[in-house]
């Protein structure tokens, strides 16, 4: 019983890692940029939700929706104004650029909302659900449900909508997509928008279980581990990597000595990198001569 309870909490946590990892992978697949500021986008999304719901007193779901829209616009503008000029530069420059953007976002959020810890009131926070003898916080159930819903929407979007297919095309071959009339630049900005949107969803789902502060973006480092485990180019891989990390971390916290919980995620990542460097669900292969 205890095992199942811990496992479900871990899966809820893992869904959050998975959602952040999904944001990394979306951008990486399309533009070969690794967005080290993804965690800070999540932080910003959570702050937007707190502003709309907590400060402006809007109904929760409306505030949630507004937070998502605001973040999507923010992601689009971020790509249009800053990132686009960097396409074609070395990967290392872009890594440093996104890290610096993360620094700026953290400083700005600290300046606007203060470094006090805020909390987000939701219709479901603090309640327990009792399913067949298992007592689980409703926050975790909402996280799991929200992740499943978002994944299905994204899958349908990429599989069936014209824009989704154009995105797949420009991620596979920019030049060919451009010749076919796909507006590659705008598509890239839209991918940034989607990634920021996913971050906003993750941030809002995460807000009730871990209070909102400018530092909450550091969870992104663990999500890196998730993305690497999944193989940095696979969307389902990112989610599964997140689930693996989330659940094993919770189990390690319950059954292993203290101190090991913090490094579980990273140890798993090192193991995967050593024995299967391309990740569990690799889609990108290394170039060979």
């Amino acid at each position, binding site marked *: 019983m205890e095992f199942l309870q811990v496992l479900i909490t871990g899966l809820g946590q893992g869904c959050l890692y998975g959602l952040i990892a999904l944001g990394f992978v979306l951008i990486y697949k399309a533009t070969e940029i690794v967005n080290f500021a993804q965690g800070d986008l999540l932080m910003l999304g959570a702050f937007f939700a707190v502003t709309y719901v907590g400060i402006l007193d809007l109904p929760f779901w409306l505030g949630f929706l507004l937070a998502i829209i605001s973040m999507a616009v923010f992601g689009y503008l971020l790509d249009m104004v800053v990132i686009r000029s960097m396409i074609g530069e070395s990967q290392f420059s872009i890594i440093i650029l996104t890290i610096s953007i993360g620094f700026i976002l953290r400083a700005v959020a600290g300046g606007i909302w203060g470094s006090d810890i805020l909390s987000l009131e939701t219709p479901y926070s603090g309640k327990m659900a009792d399913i067949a003898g298992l007592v689980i916080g409703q926050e975790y159930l909402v996280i799991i449900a929200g992740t499943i819903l978002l994944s299905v929407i994204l899958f349908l979007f990429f599989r069936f909508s014209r824009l989704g297919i154009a995105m797949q095309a420009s991620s596979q071959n920019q030049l060919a997509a451009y010749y076919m009339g796909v507006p590659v630049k705008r598509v890239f900005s839209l991918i940034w928008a989607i990634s920021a949107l996913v971050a906003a969803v993750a941030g809002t789902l995460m807000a009730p279980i871990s209070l909102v502060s400018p530092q909450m973006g550091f969870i992104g480092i663990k999500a*890196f*581990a998730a993305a690497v485990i999944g193989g940095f180019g696979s969307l389902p891989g990112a989610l599964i990597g997140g689930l693996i990390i989330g659940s094993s971390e919770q189990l390690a916290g319950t059954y292993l000595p203290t101190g090991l919980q913090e490094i579980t995620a990273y140890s798993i990542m090192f193991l995967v990198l050593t024995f299967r460097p391309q990740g569990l669900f690799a889609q990108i292969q*290394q170039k060979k001569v």
Partner: protein
Amino acid sequence: MRIIFKTAYLQDIKLLKHNGYIFWYGLLLLAVLIAPAVLDEFYIGEMAFIFIYAIAGLGLMIPVGFTGLPSLGHAAFMGIGAYANAYFLHQGVPFLISIFLAGLISFGVGALITIPLRKMTGIYFAIASLVFAIIVKEIISHWKSVTGGLGGMSVDYPVIFGFELDSTWQFYFLCLAILLLVLYLTLNLVRSPTGRAFVAIRDSEISAESMGINLSVYKIKSFAISGFFTGLAGALFAHRLSYLTPDAFNFLLSIQLLMMVVVGGLGTVHGAIFGAIFVGLLPQAIAIAKDYLPPAIGQFPGLEPGLFGVIMVLFIIFEPMGLYGRWVKFKLFFEMFPLYRKATFKRQKTYLKTERVQ
């Protein structure tokens, strides 16, 4: 414009290429040597800090600037060097041996960690090195018998042959001596076959390999040497802090080191020094500027890290060659006047996908 007439192959790798070098660098050395007699004690302390940063910057420049291994985890080597030095001093080991051991342990860790990392490129390497730093920090926090855990540990004053170096100017000269040693070793490394192999790996792994360079061995060498230098910097850093806690060696320190080499100029020895001066002076400049700014901006929480971020973004977008690159352009403009062409330093962009099978 000075044209050097070369009559021997060895002239190509001379450290001092012409008399101008001897004059200007001699002048700089003289200025640094007499600084403690002229400047206020506070500034001497800050300069010693800049020297420590410069040592770490040189250490980081070897993998990032010369070998092309994007390390986001060099705070780990600083931490290992600092804690090793403090631990050995507590055990009664003489300072000169203790700082050498600190560097050596860091060297060993650098070599070991590169064994799993050597096959990775680009982002994978960056993330793995970042994770390495996190794991090292966790180990430092939990290994109470050696590091004192989260409570931290104190650091004794360095003692060399019975002299206790407890005043600022003595520490200043200690840092200066080690910086000069590391500088000489780095310059020597860069002009040696090993250093050239590093640069070849940075420019193209495939062509380096086909020239007979063993990628794994050279990557391990690069990281191990870097670990040694950064470990030395960490050992000095421990004395500067005088009380160690694991939090001093977090992600932000790695980024600060990285910012140093990027702002200074990647792939140049000058860059590490320029970057160290920049990073060392920035907090002072911000502190001074705070008094003159309107309180809404001056009292802005997180002003310093935010400004760090803004400066990095501006450098990456507008001057990826860093401060040293700006200086080279500036110099060339006057040397070539009026024939300077902007296109000399035009960046080449690569739009081809790098890691994918086409």
